[in-house]
């Protein structure tokens, strides 16, 4: 087995193990601020931990249609969308920073980031 082949095999194993390890070991992100961006620009940041009553907001995007976002305490989702695939709607709620909700046709991204500035507590 030539060196090149060994190198590639090693690389593949590394990629596989590394990705798996990353997914499993990654500490549960403490974020609870949802950042909504449209076409690369942040349009809204919502502190999900402070939401008492659920509400919805509708955003019109460059795709020519709108996404209706439902905001609840601790989680957020796209409840309605005008895109053909509805992938964003099917994804359901997200409550931590593991994966973002993406509506590609409308260039919409909703991601949960660490508490604004990653605060552990606050004076009051």
């Amino acid at each position: 087995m030539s060196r090149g082949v060994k190198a590639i095999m090693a690389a593949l194993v590394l990629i596989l193990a590394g990705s798996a390890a990353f997914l499993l070991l990654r500490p549960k992100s403490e974020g609870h601020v949802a950042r909504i961006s449209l076409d690369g620009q942040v349009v809204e940041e919502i502190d999900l931990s402070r939401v008492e009553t659920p509400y919805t907001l509708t955003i019109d995007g460059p795709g020519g249609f709108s996404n209706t976002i439902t905001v609840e305490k601790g989680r957020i989702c796209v409840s309605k969308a005008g895109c053909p695939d509805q992938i964003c709607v099917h994804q359901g709620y997200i409550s931590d920073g593991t994966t973002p909700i993406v509506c590609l046709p409308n260039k919409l991204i909703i991601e949960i980031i660490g508490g604004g500035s990653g605060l552990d507590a606050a004076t009051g």
Partner: protein
Amino acid sequence: MVQLALLTAIALTIFMAEAQLPPLVPIQGVKLGLANIVTVYAVFVLGPGDALLILCARVFLGAVFSGQMMTLLYSAGGGLLAWAVMAGLSRILTVKQLWLASPLAAVFHNLGQLLVAAGVMKSWAVMAFLPWLLISGVVTGLFTGLCAQFLIARLERISRGKDPGTKED
């Protein structure tokens, strides 16, 4: 020439079939990249130049048939990155190691798709899906690679007349 057309047809078929599968990650248009196996095979057997021709034909026709521009961007981005890596690797590997080249190509194909998505969305947020895409790349790439390797071995045996299934009478 016939070979090129045949391979393009195969790639296109795989591509269209794959489009019927449920999405891998919640980004519209990101594909498993199964059709990539054809590109990998072509690079090793026909050379990088011809492989590129097949790739472009497949990407273009695929977009036309599926009717989505985003698909074209993803296939192009992913396919080209994979092709480039394969072209570089063709010095080290031979067609006998197709099963090994395939997962690597798949990984870069997915990376390419994700980079395109990041560019379109103008945000790195989509990179959150990278771990999943890397894993699926290795797994599906290995699968298609092994299938292809097996198929090639079988075809070779048939062409040499050693297929035990050949009837004498």
